[in-house]
């Protein structure tokens, strides 16, 4: 043990515990960086998801961030044109729509749904660019007219 004549408020035992704590913290940093690279905080392989059902395919991001642009892609396999898809009001009230590609012909509000009409040929692909305005769990539903609804879930980080 080092005995010094220095008037000093040293505490080597405490310091050793601080060092240990720091090294544990470093592992957390590394873990955080790796999970972020994988996409647990938005972007990246883990976050990309898609769901299918009754002529409707939805590509979305499982994890997104508050007020950061994210994209939802709908693939509508419809026979008749213009293509019509209904989207849940609750979801779209929680996000700010930045852009819809292609632009809808018309948007109609019907109770808990927003009815979008798109013109197109063959399979209609629609991309919504959105900015979530809330954080936490967000559930969205979409359905083609008269078909089963398809649900997708997102978690929005603050």
């Amino acid at each position, binding site marked *: 043990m080092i005995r010094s004549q220095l008037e000093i408020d040293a505490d080597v035992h405490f310091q050793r515990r601080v060092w240990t704590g720091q090294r544990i913290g470093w592992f957390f940093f590394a873990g955080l*960086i790796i999970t972020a690279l994988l996409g647990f905080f938005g972007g990246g392989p883990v976050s990309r998801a898609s769901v299918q059902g009754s002529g409707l395919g939805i590509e979305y991001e499982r994890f997104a961030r508050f007020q950061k642009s994210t994209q939802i892609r709908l693939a509508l396999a419809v026979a008749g044109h213009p293509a019509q898809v209904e989207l849940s009001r609750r979801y779209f009230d929680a996000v700010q729509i930045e852009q819809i590609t292609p632009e809808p012909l018309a948007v109609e509000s019907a109770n808990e749904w927003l009815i979008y009409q798109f013109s197109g040929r063959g399979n209609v692909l629609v991309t919504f660019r959105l900015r979530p305005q809330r954080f936490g769990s967000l559930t969205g539903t979409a359905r083609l007219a008269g078909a089963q609804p398809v649900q997708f879930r997102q978690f929005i980080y603050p």
Partner: protein
Amino acid sequence: MDAVLRAAAVYIFLLVVFRIAGERTMASMTTFDFVLLLIIAEATQQALIGDDFSLTKMMLVIVTLIGIDIGISLLKDRSRLFHKVIEGVPLIIVEDGRVLDDRMRRARIDLEDVLQAARERQGLERVDQIKYAVLERTGEISIIPNTRSDR
């Protein structure tokens, strides 16, 4: 994912650029140097943040930057070569009152810089009172004066 990648890219880019610029570039802070530093900070911030204002992004960027910093410091401990590449090496520029001209020229220092350091740090008057002048890794010039027994 992009938060981490951007932060890593910015860190590495800045590290390389400042190493290439040399130690003297940022060593003595004139007003202009200070303004230049602020502008660099602004330019960096735009690239890091983009249009994502979430807390999560902020935390990821900061953890990535600090994490890389820690990682590099651990690597520096393990490898002398890596340490030299990142930190640089000190350089003797004046020895026993004798100015080493071509070293000073390559390091972009002139005699006046050395004399200024001698005055500021040791209160020396002339170059022949300097035993050693060293350009440190930080870009500062340190002065070891002649002691009475050296005369």
